[in-house]
């Protein structure tokens, strides 16, 4: 039985070291009924995190519990209720989709939902008789997703699920994920390069860079807190320290604000600046700014 808990994934003080990669004291929580999207540059540690969650890679230190099961100790039981999909997942090239479906159904007899499998097959427009080796990249991604979702997992862990999918297929994938979330006991954690997918699906969004969690907030809070502000007048030295200047020319300064509120405008005019314009940022811009600001801060330290 799945342990009764309001927390689907809990990582505490997790450390992992590779020759050129360090993750120290990493914490992450996924509450029941939520979707967590992870965004980060290549090499940030997203795949490593997801693999540690599923017991595919062992952490050097720290505690990991998924669906209430300790990982890696109870990893085998966990795999009955949690499904993991990644782009490097190997299927057997010489065998058909149907053969794979039967294999997975035999491994997970208690949870495999044959009629749901048929539904997804139809929706993804896959031909069950086709051999894996003859599928396009997009079709192969869809086939692995089908094999995971038809198990009706309580937790779905997806590493870059939309990579290699065309816009229509990405739409089909997201709408299937929404179906899964109709059950409020379920949860999804996924990484993606497409901030648009992340933005739409996720309750909380984790920005990860260099093995560290930069921030983990709900989407609306990100969008509320970040602004691009254009200023004139005033003395550059009087600019609030938490503003990040991206451009200045002809007495006009453009700065990024990551703690915007109505107070900011008042603060700026008190300091002698005139606010010409404030614009909201997209999630993608917010992510890029965060990474750039951190890199600059690190550069300054060196």
């Amino acid at each position, binding site marked *: 039985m799945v342990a009764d808990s309001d927390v689907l994934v809990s990582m505490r003080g997790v450390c992992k070291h590779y020759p050129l990669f360090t993750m120290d004291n990493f914490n992450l929580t996924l509450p029941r009924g939520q979707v967590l999207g992870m965004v980060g540059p290549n090499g940030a540690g997203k795949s490593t995190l997801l693999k540690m969650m599923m017991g595919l890679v062992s952490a050097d230190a720290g505690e990991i519990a998924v669906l209430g099961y300790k990982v890696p100790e109870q990893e085998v039981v966990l795999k009955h209720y949690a499904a993991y999909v990644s782009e490097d997942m190997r299927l057997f090239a010489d065998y058909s989709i149907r053969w794979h479906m039967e294999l997975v159904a035999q491994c997970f007899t208690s949870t495999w939902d044959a009629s749901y499998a048929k539904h997804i097959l139809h929706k993804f427009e896959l031909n069950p008789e086709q051999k894996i080796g003859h599928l396009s990249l997009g079709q192969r991604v869809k086939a692995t997703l089908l094999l995971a979702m038809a198990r009706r997992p309580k937790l779905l862990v997806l590493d870059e699920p939309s990579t290699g999918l065309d816009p229509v297929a990405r739409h089909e994938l997201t709408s299937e994920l929404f*179906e899964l979330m109709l059950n409020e006991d379920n949860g999804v954690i996924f990484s993606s390069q497409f901030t648009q997918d992340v933005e739409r699906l996720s*309750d909380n969004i984790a920005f990860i860079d260099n093995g560290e969690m930069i921030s983990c907030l709900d989407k*609306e809070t990100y969008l509320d807190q970040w602004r691009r502000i254009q200023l004139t007048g005033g003395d550059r030295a009087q600019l609030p320290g938490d503003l990040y200047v991206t451009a200045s020319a002809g007495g006009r300064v453009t700065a990024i604000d990551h703690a915007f509120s109505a107070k900011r405008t008042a603060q700026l005019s008190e300091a002698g600046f005139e606010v010409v314009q404030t614009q909201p940022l997209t999630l993608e811009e917010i992510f890029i700014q965060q990474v750039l600001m951190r890199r600059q801060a690190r550069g300054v330290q060196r």
Partner: protein
Amino acid sequence: MALDTFQLSQADSRPMYVQIMDHIKQLVIEGTWPAGHGLPSIRELAVSVQVSVITVKRAYQELEGAGIIYTRQGMGSFVAEQTGAVSEFKLRELDDTLQQAAATARLLKLSDSELIERLTAVLNNKSTGEG
């Protein structure tokens, strides 16, 4: 079902939760959702319009704060009795329409009194057209 009419746009500059709020306000104003009408559960609406649960939650919270809906623990959310917030929203819409009418009148070089005359005619339920 009203859920099918929810169409959110990623090209729209309004945030998703504002789009949801505006849509619900519209349904309330039209009377499609009268006072006491039960709103879909947050999760139901999220899945149906394909946005995250937290986005719908935010829209419901703001609507509740504005007094347009209320929430009963364990029973869900309902449309509140005709409230100040909704009438304020309606008035703003009316002002927009009147502003458009005024702009059209300027274009046609109608005098203010001519415009008011035509409005009075509408109010008296008379035809404003020829004959």
